[in-house]
């Protein structure tokens, strides 16, 4: 049997595992609630009316607000599903059953990744479908940029998966891997990025900045929309979607290759 056939089997059963877990359905419910809350706040607080007079309410602004406010959804979805993907095999000793099989460790990692990517993508797509329904319901319009934003959100989620897989293959526990991933993305990367901005260095290569392309594709100028009161340089946050795509791809590829290497070397102690 070829390694590709084995990969299909690993992916199939990893997907079965993911769909059997309560956290997938929990994530769906939380995503729905988050999107509804953001829409309610947008309309309830009359967000467009509070912005610069240069900006008026539009489907693009609505989509930008909802998808950028919900930008943490790809992060949490990816971390929820990938944080324990490798670490749990060692922590919960399931590796004693799984690894003594004639399958390469790299095949297990790739199979687990495909399954995690699938469920994470489903959550992100679900968030966008809810947004699209709201857009059509409220504005009877669907800006084409929503699809570009969705594509970038999926690439962003994928980059979070790469980082989560790296921690999951390097750390002993699933919880540690989950927390380390969140801290890295939401704290370490953010601190570096803000510092770069204050130092007048364009942070195009930073993870979070590249992730902002999810919102910048709508073409609504950030400076006008959200610029008030931000530190110097922040008003210029307008990442190029193409560059950001490749940056996010890099944040996936490098950690994921490291993750495969670490998992291959890791011993069942």
């Amino acid at each position, binding site marked *: 049997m070829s390694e590709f056939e084995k990969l299909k089997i690993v992916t199939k059963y990893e997907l079965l595992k993911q769909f059997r*877990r309560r956290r997938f359905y929990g994530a769906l419910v939380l995503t729905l609630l988050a999107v509804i809350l953001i829409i309610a706040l947008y309309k309830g607080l009359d967000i467009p009316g509070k912005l610069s007079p240069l900006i008026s309410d539009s489907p693009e602004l609505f989509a930008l607000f909802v998808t950028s406010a919900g930008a943490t959804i790809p992060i949490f979805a990816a971390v929820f599903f990938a944080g324990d993907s490798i670490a749990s095999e060692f922590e919960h000793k399931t590796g004693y*059953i799984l690894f003594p099989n*004639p*399958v*390469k460790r790299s095949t297990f990692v790739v199979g687990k990744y495909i399954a995690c990517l699938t469920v994470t993508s489903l959550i992100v797509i679900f968030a966008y479908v809810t947004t699209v329904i709201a857009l059509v319901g409220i504005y009877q319009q669907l800006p084409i940029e929503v699809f570009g934003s969705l594509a970038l959100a999926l690439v962003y989620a994928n980059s979070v998966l790469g980082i989560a897989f790296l921690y999951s293959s390097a750390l002993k526990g699933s919880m540690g891997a989950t927390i380390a991933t969140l801290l890295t993305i939401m704290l370490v990367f953010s601190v570096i990025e803000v510092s770069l901005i204050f130092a007048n260095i364009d942070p195009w290569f930073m993870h979070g900045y590249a992730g902002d392309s999810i919102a910048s594709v709508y073409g609504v100028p950030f400076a006008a929309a959200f610029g008030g009161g931000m530190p110097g340089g922040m008003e210029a946050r307008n990442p190029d979607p193409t560059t950001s795509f490749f940056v996010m791809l890099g944040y996936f590829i490098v950690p994921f290759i490291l993750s495969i290497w670490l998992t291959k070397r890791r011993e069942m102690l």
Partner: protein
Amino acid sequence: MRESIVIEGLSRYYNGFLALDNLSLKVRKNEDVALLGPNGAGKTTALKILCGLLRPSSGTAYINGVNVMEERERAISMVGTMLETPEFYPFLTPVETLSYLGRLRGMSGQGLKSRIEEVIKLVRLEEWAKVKIGKFSRGMKQRLALAQAFLHDPPILILDEPALGLDPRGMMEVREILKKAKKEKTVFLASHLITEVVQVCDKVALIDHGHLLVYDSIPRLKRKYRTSLEGVYLKLTEAAI
């Protein structure tokens, strides 16, 4: 190939602690050998290296002539393993778990389905075959672990404390399964249960502090030391202290 398992000068350190000290032994085809020794003797370390889960600090091991360190997947394909206290994915049932592991080993279709039914019957888990493993006791997981080790009908079984966590009836049943299996398979098991070893195995490799003390057939050991296997064990492990 007369030797199913060949271990050549295996040593393993854990942060400076020598867990396995230049262990060498050969297990011939259809021989049934117990790796006997007190807790921490290095039994599990030796088995983990054989299954490619640990790397040795030095030495090498072969399964049916295939170097485990160089061709792990090919070597392990000839083995059914059961190591440490086994754990399974709690969201899957025994049938799903065995189906997954069977497919990874190249089994499929009706053949796999029939074999799953056979091994589930062998370990007496018929009533639990479609219940999620999250609800299983330790003993039931132990039975399922034994079932997966037999699933692909491997010529070699490497088992670590196979009766651990089982009630007396379960222990007896496992011994009966292994006694039947030994007729056509090579069984290499680690244990510190002398009763289990005497009933299942022909030969004993007694290790302590990672060092091989003696490796011989049970009758010859009894004759040489003029005592039971338990007496041999106590005498040699005491001397090692």
